[in-house]
């Protein structure tokens, strides 16, 4: 079907302003992705999937400027022993990064994969993204596959002794960054990837994750504290038999964030947990969009999303569990909740279940509400001041999402950042 004229014009305008990276073994994948973008067109506000989030500023050809936010908090995962890979405004920073030497994992920059002849990358780059375009289109991810000029390929072959930390620094008010990472986890291998930082004024990130039988990947991402930055991120994951994928995202501030997670549970007995906690006030729009497809038998999926909103902030959740007729014994769980700290904020939720197997347990819930006045009074009557009592109850509300993080130290760090955010608003 031909694109509506308006969408076609807007898409062409954006594409004309960009240049497809030349040559290399990914060139076919990039061309195919470009053609997907041309066919689908970039999203606009009339698209059903973008009903609650306006994509205009994410698709327009020049990124709206975003001031770099200076603060005195140390980098969130700085205290952990990690293999650190740093990008500044979407460009790899060799000086700030560690050597890519770590037992149990092979890491290369996308730009090096030709020289190093890393063929597996070709089997993954743009592949899961392309699969993830059906049944719902995700043109911004295809745009990323076509034009991302940096990123890393991470091949986990064993159990590396420390996490890989991808750091996204934001240095220029007008930066428009695209990063694309591919992560392959071999059978029985296991790794942790920590990501942090606002990345750029406008950030388009795409990660493709392929986990073989019995492999495991843990990802924790903190999207920085910049108030004006915009981000559209996609995570595509494919899980084989008995594999495990756990992802948690912390979002503090940011004028616009859309985090999409697309997971295919292909093998039997696989487990995926996708969780997120966000806190925002004022000009803050945060959208979690999740699509989980159960194909293998006896798989478990959990979606846990908690949003704390105040002073006119908007939270969006679109979460879907699709259980195919082959996916008997599926155990699916989905919860999205918003805590409104005042009367000015809004939460828009669209939980969906689509089930074709008959022996399935799927539950979903979505709520929005204020702080429990009874609990607040109970705490105050014990001497806890109003501000502190509110913080305690807010952190308690967020706890179910934070509890999805397996590593206790990482979880505590996340909680302390959330707490700091609340204290700054006293």
């Amino acid at each position, binding site marked *: 079907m031909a694109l509506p004229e308006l969408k076609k014009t807007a898409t062409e305008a954006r594409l004309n302003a960009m240049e497809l990276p030349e040559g290399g073994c990914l060139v076919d994948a990039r061309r195919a992705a470009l053609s997907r973008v041309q066919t689908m067109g970039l999203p606009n506000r009339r698209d059903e999937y973008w009903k609650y989030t306006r994509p205009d500023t994410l698709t327009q050809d020049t990124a709206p400027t975003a001031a770099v936010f200076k603060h005195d908090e140390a980098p969130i995962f700085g205290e952990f022993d990690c293999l650190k890979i740093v990008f500044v405004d979407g460009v790899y920073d060799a000086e700030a990064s560690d050597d890519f030497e770590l037992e149990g994992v092979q890491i290369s920059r996308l730009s090096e994969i030709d020289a190093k002849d890393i063929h597996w990358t070709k089997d993954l780059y743009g592949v899961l993204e392309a699969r993830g375009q059906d049944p719902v289109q995700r043109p911004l991810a295809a745009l990323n596959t076509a034009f991302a000029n940096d990123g890393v390929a991470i091949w986990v072959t064993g159990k590396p002794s420390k996490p890989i930390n991808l750091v996204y620094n934001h240095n220029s008010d007008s930066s428009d960054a695209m990063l694309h990472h591919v992560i392959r986890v071999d059978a029985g291998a296991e790794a942790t990837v920590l990501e942090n930082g606002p990345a750029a004024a406008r950030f388009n990130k795409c990660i493709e994750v392929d986990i073989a039988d019995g492999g495991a990947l843990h990802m924790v991402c903190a999207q920085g504290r910049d108030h004006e930055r915009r981000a559209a991120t996609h995570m595509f994951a494919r899980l084989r038999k008995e594999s495990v994928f756990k992802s948690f995202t912390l979002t503090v501030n940011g004028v616009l964030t859309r985090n999409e997670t697309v997971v295919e549970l292909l093998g039997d007995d696989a487990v995926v947990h996708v969780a997120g906690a966000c806190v925002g006030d004022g000009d803050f729009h945060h959208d979690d969009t999740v699509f989980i497809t159960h194909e293998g038998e006896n798989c478990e999926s959990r979606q846990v999303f908690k949003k704390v909103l105040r002073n006119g902030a908007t939270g969006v959740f679109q979460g879907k569990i699709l259980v195919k007729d082959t996916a008997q014994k599926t155990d699916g769980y989905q919860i999205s909740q918003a805590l409104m700290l005042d009367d000015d904020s809004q939460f828009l939720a669209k939980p969906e279940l689509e089930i074709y197997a008959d022996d399935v347990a799927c539950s979903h819930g979505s709520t929005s509400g204020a702080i429990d006045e009874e*609990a607040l009074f109970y705490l105050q*009557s014990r001497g806890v001041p109003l501000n502190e009592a509110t913080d305690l*109850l807010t952190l308690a509300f967020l706890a179910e999402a934070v509890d999805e993080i397996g590593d206790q130290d990482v979880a505590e760090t996340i909680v302390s950042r959330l707490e700091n955010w609340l204290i700054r608003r006293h």
Partner: protein
Amino acid sequence: MLNIKNLHVQLEDEDKQILKGVDLTVEAGKVHAIMGPNGSGKSTLSYVLSGKGGYEVTDGSATLDGESLLELEAEERAAAGLFLAFQYPVEIPGVGNMTFLRTAVNAQRKARGEDEMSAAEFLKEVRATAKSLKIDADMLKRPVNVGFSGGEKKRNEILQMAMLSPKMCILDETDSGLDVDAMKLVAEGVNALRDENRGFLVITHYQRLLDHIKPDVVHIMANGRIIKSGGPELALEVENNGYADILAEVE
């Protein structure tokens, strides 16, 4: 210690007078009991004293050791030494009982300009107190009151009371929902805290609790006022004859 004079209270949202001139003085070291029919304003009195929202004081005063309570926030009243044991203790999912207790103890200490209690010191004290109330370690770790039985919730109130060591304790129908053994346990916990510097106001429907927590003075409350005060024998009279005689006598 606690001085209530001519206290008039109405609901904030509707024009309904609940307390119509309560006069009551509780001296340090004494246990006062308030009995009265349903709807007489007993629980409202406890809420108004502890600073719950939704009520409007239209007249009168309430002071604790000379300090006026009614202008203070709930947390300031707690720091001033007032404690309310709730009729229905609130469940707080996600907040550990121990964290809750420690936050409360230290918030009060901070408000009074005292040093915070160290983790070790706190742990030692809370374990000893919990043991005397037959509260096991598991109950301390669980979220506040979540999944607690009626008896456990009330024992948890007494644990908080013991840890916070208030000057003035108000117990709002602490016996409701308790079996005989649980009531004895709770009463023992309260009795252990009785001393010459601490006052108690025990709100109850039944004489039974007063067999275990022996009051010095018993007040009968009806229609928003204290209509009669006397010794422990007044509670027995109510138990035997109900409120009808007393109400008729006053009218």
